[in-house]
């Protein structure tokens, strides 16, 4: 964490990919919970699409390694 908040730290493609995967998964989970609680709703559909896209894009960024995002 200290390194992340250092003067010269820059987020890499791999880290961006991981972050997108985490955010995407969270969105997918939230959409699932929302659907289970309230049925199929627009917000859940949008959340699921955005989450799915985030996970997919994140996955494709992982192989790009330490290059700056």
């Amino acid at each position, binding site marked *: 964490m200290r390194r*992340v*908040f*250092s*003067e*010269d*730290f*820059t*987020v890499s493609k791999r880290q*961006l990919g991981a972050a997108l995967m985490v955010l995407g998964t969270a969105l997918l989970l939230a959409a699932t919970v929302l659907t289970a609680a309230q049925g199929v709703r*627009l917000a859940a559909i*949008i959340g699921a699409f*955005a989450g799915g896209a985030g996970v997919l*894009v994140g996955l*494709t*960024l992982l192989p*790009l390694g330490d*290059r*700056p*995002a």
Partner: protein
Amino acid sequence: MATGGTASARHRSPWAVTGWLLTGLAFALLVGHLLIYVHYAVGLIRFPFDYDQGEGFELVDTILFSQGEWPYRSNETYPFYASNYPPLFHVILVPFAWVFGPAYWYGRLAGFVGTLITAAAIGLIVSREERHRGVATLAGLAFLASNYVYHIGPLFRQHMTMVMFETLAVAVLAQAPSIRNTGRRRWALAGGLLLLLAAGYTKQHAVATCAAVFVFLFLRNPRRAVIWGAGFAVVAGGLFLWIDWATGGAWWTNVIAANVNDYYLAQFAGLFRQWLRLHGALILVAALFALYELYVARLSLYTIWWVMAVASTILAGKWGAGDSYFTTAIAATCALSGLAAARALRGAWALPGGARAALKAAAGVVVPLVYVWYALSVVKMPTEGRFFGWLSDALGLESTYGDRYAFYDAAGWTQGYASIGHVPTQADVDNGWRIVDLVRAADGPVMSEEAAFSLHADKDVITNPTQLKNLYENGLYDPATLVAALRAQEFAAVIFRAQFYPPPVLDAVYEAYYPAEAIPMNGFSYEIWRPGPPADQRAAFAASLAELQPGETRAMVLALPFDSALNWRQHAMTHHQWQAVRGKPQLLGEGGECMVSAYSQGQRVITIEVCPAGTETRLTLSR
């Protein structure tokens, strides 16, 4: 278009000549779009009334600020008015209000100049990053050519000023993290974030650009993003809390809570499809550039801004939203596609040598072709007048709006798309002044759905209709006081254009007023509603309708002149859900001065005889 080639022979090749011809065509078409935009802006700046729904209320906000008053106030007390927009656009216009009083031209001029500054900022971004003035100019002109920018640019609305501040903020902040000199970097960050703050306090929709900026700063250096983000949050949040405190909580209610509206997916989908169709040429290039930065190069603020701005267009599905919600995405698209085009012409892609050379060779023709494709997609123009009548005839273009407006728009129409774009005529101006004369002559305040008539007549502006509607639908507005005022006929007249009021308010108008006159202006019918008879007479009439037995007759006197009573009777019967029985009304009485009509409701039939009685009118109901 100049590709940075070396030999003059290459410049004379058919490929190069084609490129130059297409470049000339792209410039000619986009300059043509600019001239049409200027023509429209001049026409609107000269028009002294509301052109788009709600413009007048932005002027009212400006006037209130010029008098040192907040427009964020209770909607439940006279004059039942509050604003739902942040203050900056109106505050900027305050000096104009001091000098010129209430007028539409300076707000429209500010909006128009804002779009020119935005276009210049887009050009500056492309020129600075890619050092290609030709494409920079095309990118700026492309922004001004958009049907959406054309629509909204010269209106007395704050949206395009927000886009201007957003674009300027992005232009300043995009290079800020790369500045090595600490002092200069801090100044750039502070200046950029100040512009971002200005965008947010011009209109709430700037939140997408705020998100883009802080994501970008975080990717470049999380420490700097957190420090500057905390500072930004303190300033923006402090301002928010101060205004909320100063207005007794009315700021939160009117600016935040009132903007939570119903959502229509079909409206968003229709607008998104339309946006893709009109701007597809540039969107395609921008999307490819975004993918290139994501996987090959480094993400710039321009790309992150574009992604966030496009994502934020999903809010265009809200009730009351529309094509204006795409204008930030259009600015970002023009900037990003301009960067891609200029880079392609310079052959500066970070790609394997063969691919880069092939791209550069193709770019000389493909780039101008993209702008020609775009310019031909966004065609719009007036279809009457000495020049535009001839031009539209020559091009075979007819008005998209039939007899309503003389205006062709390649965008067509979809739910949420503003059906404007025509230049108001002298007849529109004359009819507007006719309505002002009616308001001036009215004995008391007038509740008008648009502010211009009351402002010109130097009377109080009563209500901000859509604001009342939004608050009512969110359970935040009790219309009881306004309804009571309407039922007591405290307003000398009511002027409707679209009837965007809460249902109880509309119902009170229907009950206590009647449509006396309709005046066309700008393709809309402005209905002038006059007070009907007093409440006791209306109640007696309604009771008679409900209680009248077969063979029974009831007579009453209405405190209305004969012609007005005829209009009121027709409206009142419709309001009480009675239908006119077919057949012409009969003339009765000495000299045929009375009018008899029959109405039915289910199996019940009533005849109503209306006769003049001095300055009043006698009504006889028979069943």
